[in-house]
């Protein structure tokens, strides 16, 4: 089972957490920890890139929901990049696609986040 996580800052300092592989009960705690670090660093916007995620379960969804809730409590937001229909379907069948701002590319997400903070 593979899992990788890469954190980068785009121009303007927007943090992007790029995930790869399987995000489940075993690996999702690493994502949670990374989100806590970014929140403690004062991030108001976070983008989570799920483009290279092959599997995502309810534990991962719980971590993402928790992160979104915390961000919104601080007048921030968390956006997702999720072009893969298989992963997007998990959000759709749970109704979470109506809660998260989900984009299909990093360009689209950055543009939308930029407009939201203007």
């Amino acid at each position, binding site marked *: *089972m593979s899992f990788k996580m890469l954190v980068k800052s785009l121009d303007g300092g927007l943090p992007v957490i790029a995930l790869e592989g399987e995000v*489940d009960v075993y690996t999702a705690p690493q994502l949670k920890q990374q989100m806590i670090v970014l929140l403690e660093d004062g991030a108001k916007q976070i983008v989570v890139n799920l483009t290279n995620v092959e599997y995502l379960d*309810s*534990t991962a969804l719980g971590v993402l*929901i928790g992160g979104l809730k915390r961000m919104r409590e601080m007048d921030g937001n968390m956006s997702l990049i999720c072009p893969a229909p298989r992963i997007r379907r998990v959000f759709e*069948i749970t109704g979470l696609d109506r809660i998260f701002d989900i984009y299909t590319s990093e360009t689209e997400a950055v543009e939308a986040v930029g407009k939201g903070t203007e």
Partner: protein
Amino acid sequence: MERLECTTCVELRIPCRPEYVGVTRLTILGVASRMKFSYDEVEDVRLAVGESCTTSVDRAEKNNRPDAQIILRSEISHDKLTIDIIDDAGSRISEEVDEGADIEPENIGALLVTLLVDEVEVYRLDTGTHVRMVKYARNG
């Protein structure tokens, strides 16, 4: 050697711990691929099994059962795949709905299982839980 009950059964026993849930997903992926399921249906089965095993792992942690195990048993028939997930992770506390609570992963997991397979039954055992799920092959 203990024999399985049927000639199309596959059985796997794993430690009830997070790092082994992926093994159950791989196993059921192989089994479901033998059925006349679509690609999406195979993925549904994989996710449902992963969610059910994750619930078992959560219960083992909450009930402090580090030695708990999960048995995954599947049976193929011409029109359906029957999957049994049996754990000795202790009893499941009743799922009381608290309107003010955050969405718990366990609740999302239970929702996913219900949506992804055609039938789900949950039996409480003395030492844990037995979940039986059935997925019908409609392409056959």
